[in-house]
């Protein structure tokens, strides 16, 4: 920890002040000004981390039951992880990743294109379009899950791949929410890219497609990363539409599948669930920690106006 604070500050972290002269203070003052902060910090960390430690321990417990998981790290074995191989867990994991990646790629492509149009072109209906998007995004798609279900019944009678119980259909439904949620986040960011750049390129003979693909998209990569990540994470955890659309077990996503395990036999399936939870949380956790700085920026970029 000490080496951490005394090392040259990482740029952009705004913590350079911490290396200013560190004068010794008396214990009483220390406790009043900093000590209690450590107490609060430790308590907060305990609250935040305990469930995570617990689930890790439960996933390693060989008994695989809820009762057997209560002693943290009493025994450590990979039984639960091995047992996942006999279930459909990996199928669900595959489905979730395919659906999540397809949705986030589609969301980024369509959202960025729309944001480019709104940010760079002036056309009749632009203001109307932006306002309608703003209004539409107020109504979360999930509220209409009954209508989505009924729509997919009708579509399925025509093209089964777009009907119920199809992963492609679920991706299409998720993509339907792409424009509403993300265009504004991107639109704001696109507006910060100086217009002189595209004008210069246009004078040099670049077409609108060239400006878009070779100039703008390069410059807005951070917001693309944020939108892709947020869209992936929200797809990863989406339950209600996935539950309504995907009916056969081999098509389920992790959210639907793990819910099925725990809702039917909580006590007996606990070890399996814990192992599955650790494995499914890991990719998200890793992505999150890796891209933490972008996410925080992205969260605030959209709406916080100081």
């Amino acid at each position, binding site marked *: 920890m000490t080496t951490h604070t005394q090392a040259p500050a990482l740029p952009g972290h705004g913590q350079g002040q911490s290396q200013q002269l560190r004068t010794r203070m008396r214990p009483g003052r220390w406790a009043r000004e900093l000590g209690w902060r450590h107490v609060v910090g430790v308590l907060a960390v305990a609250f935040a981390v305990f469930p995570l430690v617990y689930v890790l321990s439960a996933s390693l417990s060989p008994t695989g039951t809820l009762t057997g998981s209560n002693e943290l790290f009493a025994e450590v074995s990979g039984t639960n992880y091995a047992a996942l191989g006999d279930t459909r867990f990996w199928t669900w994991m595959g489905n979730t990743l395919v659906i999540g990646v397809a949705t986030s790629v589609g969301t980024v492509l369509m959202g960025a294109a729309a944001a480019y149009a709104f940010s760079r072109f002036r056309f009749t209906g*632009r203001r109307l379009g932006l306002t309608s998007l703003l209004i539409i995004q107020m109504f979360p798609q999930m509220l209409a899950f009954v209508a989505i279900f009924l729509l997919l019944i009708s579509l399925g009678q025509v093209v089964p791949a777009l009907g119920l119980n199809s992963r492609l259909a679920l991706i299409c439904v998720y993509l339907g929410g792409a*424009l509403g949620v993300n265009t504004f986040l991107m639109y704001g960011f696109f507006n910060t890219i100086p217009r002189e750049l595209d004008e210069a390129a246009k004078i040099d003979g670049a077409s609108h497609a060239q400006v878009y693909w070779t100039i703008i998209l390069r410059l807005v990569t951070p917001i693309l990363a944020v939108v892709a990540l947020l869209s992936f994470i929200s797809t990863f955890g989406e339950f209600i539409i996935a539950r309504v659309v995907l009916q056969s077990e081999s098509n389920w996503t992790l959210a639907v599948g793990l819910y099925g395990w725990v809702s039917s036999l909580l006590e007996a399936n606990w070890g399996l669930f814990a192992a599955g939870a650790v494995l499914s949380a890991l990719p998200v956790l890793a992505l999150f920690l890796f891209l933490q700085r972008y996410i925080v920026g992205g969260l605030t970029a959209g709406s916080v106006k100081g």
Partner: protein
Amino acid sequence: MSRPRYRGAEAGSGSFSGAGFAVKLVLIALVDALGVFGVLAAWKAGSWGILAAMVALLVAANWVYFTKRALPLKYILPGLAFLLVYQVYVIGYTGYVAFTNYGDGHNSTKEQAIEALLVQNERRVEGSPSAPLTVVASDGGDLGFAVTDEAGEAEVGTADEPLAEAPDATVSDGVVTALPGWTVLDRQQVLERQDEVTALRVPVSDDPADGSVRTQDARTGYVFQSVLEYDAGADTMTDTSTGVVYTPNDDGQFEAADGTTLPVGWRVTVGFENFATAFGDPRYAEPFVKILAWTFVFAALSVATTFALGMFLAMVFNDPRLRGRKIYRTLTILPYAMPGFLAALLWAGMLNESFGVVNQVLLGGVSIPWLTDPWLAKVSVLLVNLWLGFPYMFLICTGALQSLPGDVYEAAKIDGAGRWRTWRSLTMPLLLVATAPLLISSFAFNFNNFTLIKMLTGGGPRFEDASVPLGHTDILISMVYNVSGLDGSAPRDYGLASALSIVIFVVVGAISAIAFRQTRKLEELS
């Protein structure tokens, strides 16, 4: 340096747009091929609405990408198409369904309901013709019947294909013994699929009134005819066995003079009846009011608690002299990276009354009904949501705190303001201004936090006195889910479910409108 930066691009621009045009052509060709396939399929299935929508989308796509006059649309159309179909249309459709009685017993159109009624009420008519019958299977494995009529001519059909003449069948002793394109099932195979065989119903013709061929023994087929008879001219259904005449009523059912109705109905618009049920019918109104209140309380308290804890921690960790604050920060935001459904399921196990770690270990073996007592369940839901939500608030408060102007604090210090006074009059208002839009969207999110409720308590504990499966921690969206009957726990009632969705739309819309005015986003659209 005087060389134009884009000389290379200029020289290559011809080849770029050439390649770009080729890519565009291939993509459009692909879309057209899929679109035409969809149009043909819709034509075949007779779905005129889908057909029209597909043709419209196809024409729009081709026009937009080949005209020079629709530049912005080239970029907007792909997203717009999905938006129109899967968001705008479904929201509109929700509005329509809310005014119908769509649901169990009223699932389809009137024609389909009549057909279903005729089929369901088929009986073997006394003295009806019987025919020697052979069970056959198509290449796809579908079962069918091959029968011979009085003249000894063979006919074959399946559940979906009415009987049709099969001139190339081999008939011996009046029984079909071989049929090209079909496999004749032997005794053993018939026994294996006995249930399917006795349930199979092969229509005599396209007209359901002609009845169908069925069999009990796989050797003789009998013609079954419906005891109901539909008179298209008078629009009445007559039960030929009793002579009772049923006429269509306003609820989309055939009703006899004495008030009895036939079981299969069709969907009709019922006006505000669903809304009247939600607010007026005691079976729904009582739970609905409780659930509506709890939804507001839950969403408001969720925002309040997470914001309070997040802000507190942000301020605690905002002292640059605090050693290891980076580690504190990283560890405290970990719950944010945990997918919500996993967290809720995990806590459901941890809070289990008899085996969970909270009761057994942390509290030393007590038996607190965290999830099964009406009040404690509400506390638990808020507690778990606090765990899930405070890191987000912590993050945005940290961000906002670091952007607060330092000179204001200097001024406050000079003016002699104490810590508490500074917080109350400076930090808190500035933080609220900076985070208000996020707080409102957090409220809207929690208002519809279906995953948490469903995974943690499942809405339970159930209301003791309610006939519908609703409970003390159900929020509006989970009530919609239960009422819709999509998980099979209740009869399906899409109409009522959609009406409740509309109520949520109104609430969420109102909240967003407030947020809208707050952030004055509209003014920024230049």
